[in-house]
């Protein structure tokens, strides 16, 4: 995580106040701009602090970054330690200068293998440092937010080829150091092309539109649910609750943008006794709790009306929403993290026993965002076929638990079936984690 965008060079301890990002309003396509190195997005949909209100998403992001980010305050100490313990890791070390005038200076004896560069920022501004292949543009290593006067380590695995350090001081153009050739015929280590904010604007816009198209379905769904309850048809309400809820759960990549609305529409109650009766418990799960715990229609009219009203407001406001492009890669990964954490544990079950249906809807949402990212992902992730087959396998095994509207509740899964779904989910998550890493938005110039 980086504190690059908002940390004063002289005070690496993170500044508490958010600094609006200068170009936040100037991006084409109506997309909220974020720091190029933004990664500390709110990574949880259920966390109470997930309230990145749509219009100010970028600024909030910056605040989160500043507060919780890299913990780079100890850089000086780390730098000294690195020098002192240089030999202890058993790896070859090379001291490299990071500055506008001397970017990459010091690489006198290039060699293949796993090695450490001790990067020292001799300039006056915090800098990002990349180790790149200047021809292909692939990055072999990165260090974000190297504070002036500090030394930090970059561990890389280098094969034979040509490399150059790239120094990107804050508020200054990037500088590429001299090209250095590692001789021999050693296979090259892991590397990929960086993704820029510009790259992500088309898929982000397309995703925003896809969500917009789902908004109508969602509003119709909650409207039907409300009507069922208003006329006292609770059997129909149970059926229509599920279909409306699944529409919402398919929109998984957008929760950060929904902000507080997500808590009102899909929040859960605390575990404490009586929490389900608290007036603050609202939305789909409140209605679910009532429908599956024998509450009369009269008791559910108000929660259903409130849900429908909140969904309507979300739909009406969506045209003004701006998704942060930096969210795309994170959400591609984290929808399924949420599935594992909240659905496969049953934490979000309030009686319907439809966690696996929700998981299946979440997987649809993941598929959608992956399909939009695919043109960028294909040249960057050689394991994409593995990822695709992991998606297919989880889908297949979730589908086996669904029978039309009837889904096997978690606690009725046989052991083998449960283990298979856990295995599929865990495997898929291991495949998705690199997607978030690759789509960490990077500066290139």
């Amino acid at each position, binding site marked *: 995580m980086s504190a690059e965008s908002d940390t004063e060079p002289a005070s690496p301890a993170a500044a508490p106040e958010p600094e609006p990002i200068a170009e936040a309003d100037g991006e084409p396509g109506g997309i909220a701009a974020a720091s190029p190195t933004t990664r500390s997005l709110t990574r949880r949909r259920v966390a109470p602090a997930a309230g990145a209100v749509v219009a100010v998403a970028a600024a909030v992001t910056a605040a989160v970054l500043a507060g919780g980010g890299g913990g780079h305050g100890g850089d000086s100490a780390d730098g000294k330690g690195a020098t002192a313990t240089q*030999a*202890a*890791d*058993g*790896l070859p070390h090379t001291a490299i200068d990071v500055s506008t005038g001397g970017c990459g200076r010091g690489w006198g004896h290039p060699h293949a*293998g*796993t090695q450490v560069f001790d990067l020292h920022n001799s300039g006056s501004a915090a800098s990002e440092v990349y180790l790149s292949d200047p021809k292909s543009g692939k*990055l*072999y*290593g*990165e260090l974000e937010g190297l504070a002036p006067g500090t030394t930090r380590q970059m*561990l*890389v*695995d280098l094969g034979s080829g040509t490399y150059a350090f790239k120094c990107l001081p804050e508020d200054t153009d990037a500088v590429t150091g001299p090209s250095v050739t590692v001789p021999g015929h050693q*296979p090259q*280590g*892991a*590397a*990929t092309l*960086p993704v820029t904010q510009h790259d992500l604007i088309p898929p982000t816009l397309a995703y925003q539109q896809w969500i917009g198209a789902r908004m109508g379905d969602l509003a119709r769904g909650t409207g039907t649910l409300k009507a069922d309850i208003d006329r006292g048809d609770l059997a129909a309400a149970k059926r229509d609750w599920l279909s409306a809820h699944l529409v919402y759960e398919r929109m998984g990549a957008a929760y950060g943008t929904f902000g507080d609305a997500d808590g009102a529409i899909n929040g859960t109650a605390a575990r404490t006794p009586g929490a389900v009766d608290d007036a603050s418990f609202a939305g789909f799960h409140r209605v679910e709790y009532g429908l599956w715990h024998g509450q009369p229609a009269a008791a559910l009219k108000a929660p259903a009306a409130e849900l429908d009203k909140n969904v309507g407001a979300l739909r009406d406001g969506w045209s003004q929403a701006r998704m942060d492009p930096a969210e795309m890669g994170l959400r591609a990964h984290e929808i399924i993290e949420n599935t594992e954490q909240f659905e496969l544990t049953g934490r979000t079950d309030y009686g319907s026993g439809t966690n696996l249906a929700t998981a299946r809807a979440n997987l649809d949402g993941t598929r959608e965002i992956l399909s939009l990212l695919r043109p960028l992902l294909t040249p960057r*992730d050689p*394991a994409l*076929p*593995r990822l695709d*087959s*992991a998606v297919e*396998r989880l889908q297949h095994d979730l589908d086996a638990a669904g029978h039309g509207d009837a889904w096997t509740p978690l606690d009725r899964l046989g*052991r*083998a079936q449960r*283990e*298979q779904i*856990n*295995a*599929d989910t*865990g*495997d898929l*998550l*291991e*495949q998705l*984690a*690199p997607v978030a*890493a*690759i789509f*960490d938005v*990077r500066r290139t110039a």
Partner: protein
Amino acid sequence: MSDTRDAAGELRRRGFLRGAALGVGTVGAVAGAGAATAALTGPSAHAATPAPAATPVAAQDAPFHGEHQAGIIRPVQQATAFLAFDVTAADRRELTELLHTVTDRARFLTAGGTPQALGITAPPSDSGTLGPQVPRDGLSVTVGAGASLFDDRFGLKDRKPLRLKAMPAFEDDDLDPAWCHGDLSLQLSAPHQDTVLHALRDIARHTRGGMQVRWRLDGFTSPPRPSGTPRNHLGFKDGTGNPDVGDPATAGKLLWVGDGAEPAWTTGGTYQVVRLIRMLVEFWDRVSITEQERMFGRAKDTGAPLDGSREFDTPQFAQDPMGDVIPLDSHIRKANPRTADTAGSRLLRRGYNYDRGMDGNGNLDVGLIFVCYQQDLERQFETVQKRLAGEPLVDYITPFGGGYFFALPGVRDRGDWLGRSLLA
């Protein structure tokens, strides 16, 4: 899922191995305190960490490669995790990938070194809980196969070891199905708990699609109190009477499978029995010392047999035919009557204490992860178990889980892998 082979012909980035995160090189032994080793050392440089004086608990490094898995003969270590897995791999090819992956991870984790640098392509390849370099720290990784692995899924029906079956319930057992059996067993042991947990996290991360934990119990070995064999939760020294498997002739008679009746692939392996035994320590603490000692047949303080004065004195059952000194139904007398007829039933015990919190009635949930190895399940463990049926000690213990496994033959070299002789 496709296998790709690198220049060396080794399987890499296979199905369950997302990052192909084979570590780099081997860092010299960091296990010993103050081992400020710097240079890269080859895998053969097994810098022996000196065993702490006056402890029978293992602290030596054992090489990963060999005819047998290193963790079997090796004495118990301070920390362990015992797990049973169910295989979720879809077919024989995926099972093969899984065992390749487990082997690769075990090879790296037991050797130590620098985790692979993945640059910007992925999260870090290692959890970092042991620091930036993974110390070898005496880790052992022991893998076994349960009878269920030889069902219809992987075409291994005709390769099942002769004696392997699902562990039956014995007379005094109260087995919980959730804590029994499994397609594979995995035991991780090391001098430190963080090393064990690091290894578990690493192996699980690389095998999520291929296997899922069915049950897991962590254990520990107490230091000698004050000397000799470590004590169990009942306060008695446990493991005193183990056969000397460091003697190849003894090991050949009691431990390693390799005779003609077993499938050829089993050579170098051994049967592994694990029994999860709850000890009712509150009840035990309310029993007089005389009764406790007569149940075991040993003195609680020294560990000596009741007819001797030192822990390693040999009990002379023949001179006490009526059990006046060591009762006929005492644990040591039932377990090992020390006659010519029963010599072949001796087995190698490698048990650990466990502590997993509290029970609903407010009592400590503690006990023993009893692990033993033998050449023949029926001739050894089952025979001993039947002799022990109804011993007075059963009132204070409750076996609730475990299983029978076949500890696979060792990984002979860098080209070999766990289960090769079974699957290739």
